[in-house]
Each structure stands twice: as C-alpha cells, then as structure tokens.
C-alpha cells in the first residue's frame, strides 16, 4: 500500500510513490491536482503536510477497562480485516501500539499527563480525567483523521513512566482503545464508531481472580480491595461513557444456572443503537420484534446448560436500541453455524464467515460464548462501515471530476 505522507517538506514535489495501476491511484491524482484536500499551508510553506494517499482513516473508539491493544477484542477485530496485529517493529519494546496491514490500535494510556509517581503524589487514579491530557489526545486523533503523521507519547506500563514518543502513520482503520475514548466531547465527535465493553461486577471479579490468583502476593482480599478502591472513580468517569457508545457489549452472569458463581457460563448482550449512520443492527428473525429463541431441540442437541437467545427493541439511556442477547455456550461447531444461519444483517461476505472467524481464534477467551460471538460480529460491522465510507469517498471525487 503506497502511502505518501511527506511531512515537514517545503517542496510540492514530495516523494509520492505510487505503486500499482489501481483505480485507487486515480483518486490520488484527482485529490492532488484539485488541491482541495491537501494539507494545511502555513505562512511561508514551511510546514507543509502533503498526504497524497487517501489514507484518511476511519476512527473507531473502544472503551475497556484494563488491557490495551493486546486484548482479545482487538485481536479479533484486526483479524476480521485480515492479518495479525503486531507491536511496531524496531521500536520501544514496551509500546502499547499494535499495527497490522490495515489497522493501527493505540492505547489511550499513552496520553497520561501524570506518570505513576505523579499520580501517587496527587492521590489520583489513572481513571481520573486529571491524569490524562485530553487536549493532546484530541489534537493527535484529529491529525491522524486528516491523514497526517503524529508523534505519540508512550506510557510504559511496566516502569510507570512516560517514554519518548513513537511515530504513527495514518492507517486505513485507526482504533483508539482505553479508558476514556468517549470522555472528551471533541474526541467523541471524531469517532466514526464507538464501542463500550461493559463487564458486570460479578464477572469482573471472577475474571480478575482467574487472572491474578496465580500471582504471588495476591489474595482474594487484595483483588477485592483493588476492585473496590477503583470503583468510585470508575463509576464517576468511565461508566457514563456507555451512553455515547454506538454498540455496548454487556457481560453478565448466566441465568441458565441457578446460583452460579463460577462465572464460566456468561450472558452477553449486544446493545446496538438505532439510527446510527452506516450501522445496521443485527437481528433475529424479524427486525423490531421481540424474540426469545432456544436453538436446542429436535434439530440441534446441546449439552448443559444449553443456549438461549433473545432479541428485541429497548431503550438505553434515552436512546432507541436493539438488543441481541446470548446466554450459554457453544460446545460444538454445528451449534455455532446453526446460530449464525438464523441471524440476519451480520454483514458477512459469505455464509459461515462468523463461524470461520471464531474458529480461527478458538484459543482466545470467549470463543465459545457470546463475548467472542459479539466481538466478531462488531468487527464485521466495522468492516462494513469502513467499506461504506470508502465507497462514499470514491463516489465524491468522481462526481467532482465529472464537473
């Protein structure tokens, strides 16, 4: 993919190396000669950013607690677009960024204004907006969205310090993942699509136990204390973001097993906002109706505790939404394909694509329940959104050229 991002150059004849004979390149030429969408020009043309590629990325925001760029969701998302996402080669080994052919994922922790010592001195958690530089976040996300290259700081999670910045070039899809993607209104307006991962307290507790119990020094009490100490800030600053999200994935304990406290079987809801541009919610059987569906029966045999689906319209923080819910887990391949064949508006390119994606990452957590299923579906929706945007952009210059 030829990306010509010639930054800090005075010459208009910057290296715009284009490679193959694609229709894409035609667009680049139009852009360049029409000069309508070139970068800004300052006074004496000293800092002239020319980006002659159509690399104005689609920006996606993902709000998730703990975990940045390495989370399962991100890996599934980048896999839908093709290719595995890797940390940038040759850079800081503690970088939180992930880069694949089409996608770049950055961690919003990199915009901490206070490092770990600073936060300890002020008595402020990382969840607190005072620990984050939203102005810089807004500037840089805006720059990337306009097709410019940025130098983004790195927050080193191991040392707790702010490391020297790394260079990020605009990709096709730019994902910002972290605690506050939708906190600042300006950043929120830049997002083409936003997702909030809402884990209920019980499930969060069970997951953190699984993660930390093997760790020397941790005990049940310390894990509990850690969650409780962060809860006030979480509820005040992070949780309210879910009202702004276009899609919320809510993870709750199962209702199929009475008094279950193991947290192994999950009930997952995909809450999709209605009326979002370029986003068509997934539905079951009939759009807008309320459906309860237990696929296990004569055609499909499931083992305990089985699978239960629900779909219906609802209201979420004053917005019209459609909610698709799955309780239980998949035990066999044919259960997954059976379910997929009954869902509509999945934005798949071929029959069985969801199943194929789930199989590809069968070792990821959540591959046998709603978390993996809905994360994969959201990934397909984002791909659909991206293709719609690209098609719209392709349509526009062609129109302009005809005139």
């Amino acid at each position, binding site marked *: 993919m030829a990306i010509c991002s010639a930054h800090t150059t005075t010459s208009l004849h910057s290296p715009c190396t284009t490679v193959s004979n694609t229709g894409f390149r035609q667009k680049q030429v139009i852009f360049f000669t029409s000069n309508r969408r070139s970068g800004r020009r300052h006074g004496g043309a000293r800092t002239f950013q020319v980006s002659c590629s159509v690399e104005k990325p689609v920006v996606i925001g993902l709000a998730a607690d703990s975990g940045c760029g390495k989370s399962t969701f991100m890996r599934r998302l980048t896999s839908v677009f093709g290719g595995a996402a890797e940390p940038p080669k040759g850079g800081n080994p503690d970088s939180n960024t992930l880069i694949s052919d089409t996608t770049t994922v950055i961690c919003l922790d990199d915009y901490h204004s206070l490092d770990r010592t600073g936060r300890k001195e002020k008595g402020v958690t990382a969840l607190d907006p005072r620990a984050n530089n939203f102005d810089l976040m807004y500037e840089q996300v805006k720059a990337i969205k306009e097709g410019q290259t940025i130098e983004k700081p790195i927050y080193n999670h191991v040392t707790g310090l702010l490391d020297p910045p790394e260079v990020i070039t605009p990709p096709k899809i730019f994902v910002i993942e972290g605690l506050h993607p939708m906190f600042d209104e300006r950043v929120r307006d830049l997002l083409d699509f936003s997702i909030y991962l809402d884990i209920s307290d019980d499930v969060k507790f069970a997951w953190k136990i699984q993660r930390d119990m093997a760790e020397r*020094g941790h005990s049940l009490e310390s894990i509990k204390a850690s969650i409780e*100490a962060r809860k006030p800030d979480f509820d005040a600053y992070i949780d309210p973001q879910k009202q702004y999200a276009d899609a919320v994935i809510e993870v709750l304990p199962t209702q199929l097993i009475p008094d279950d406290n193991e947290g192994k079987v999950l009930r997952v809801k995909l809450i999709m906002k209605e009326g979002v541009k370029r986003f068509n919610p997934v539905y079951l059987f009939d759009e807008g109706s309320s459906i309860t569906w237990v696929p296990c029966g004569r055609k499909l045999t499931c083992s305990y505790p089985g699978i239960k689906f629900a779909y219906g319209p609802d209201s979420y923080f004053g917005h019209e939404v459609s909610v698709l819910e799955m309780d239980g887990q998949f035990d066999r391949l044919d259960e997954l394909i059976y379910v997929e064949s009954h869902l509509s508006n999945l934005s798949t390119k071929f029959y069985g694509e969801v199943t194929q994606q789930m199989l590809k990452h069968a070792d990821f957590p959540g591959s046998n329940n709603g978390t993996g299923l809905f994360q994969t579906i959201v990934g397909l929706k984002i791909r659909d959104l991206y293709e719609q945007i690209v098609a719209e952009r392709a349509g526009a210059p062609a129109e302009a050229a005809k005139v």
Partner: protein
Amino acid sequence: MASTVASLSTPATFAAADVLPRKVVGRVWFPVARRSGGFAVSSSGPTTPPEISDKVSESIKKAEETCADEKGTGECAAAWDEVEELSAAASHARDKLKENNDPLENYCKENPETDECRTYDN
C-alpha cells in the same frame, strides 16, 4: 480428571502435534471449549517474569499499608490502581511468554511459505 483450572497450553500443543500438515480447522476447538469454559487460565503455564512479579507484590504491600491508615482517600485509591495496573502488565507479560514458547510458531510467523508452515484453509 483434569482440574477445572485447566492448562490452556496443553490441549493446543496436543492437537498441533497430532495433525500434519497444520490444519487450521478444528485444531483446538473442542478440548478448549469443554475444559476451561472459555477462560484462558493456565496454572501450569509460564510464570510472570520475576521483575514484574516483585513489583506486583511490593505494590500490594504498599497499598495495604496506605489503606490501613486512611481508607477511602485518593492515596488509597491510587495505590490500589497501581496494583491493578501492574497485575495487568504481569498478565500481559505471561501471555507474551506463552506466545513465544513454541519455536515452530515463532519460525512460521517469519516464514509462512516454508513446507512446515503451510496451512490449509479449506
């Protein structure tokens, strides 16, 4: 009978060793789904690198001390937040170690076209 906190790495290497050439479909699907119920926990997997592990235990001690004096203050919250951050970093470090454990995987990442690394998607 395998414990409920089953090692995720074992079924994966099992299946990979059984199948030649490396077929992607059905490689680790069923054993994983049945045993660990979707949670990637490995009790016999790689342990956290000692530097991070030490940091985690230190931060827990510090947090407990800070919060023993005054509970519910900003300092207490910040201390436990640090514990959370370091625990997450430790978990990522463990995952990274797990990813780098298999020499075949590492080789094939760089050289997918070689005979040993061919995958058949249909």
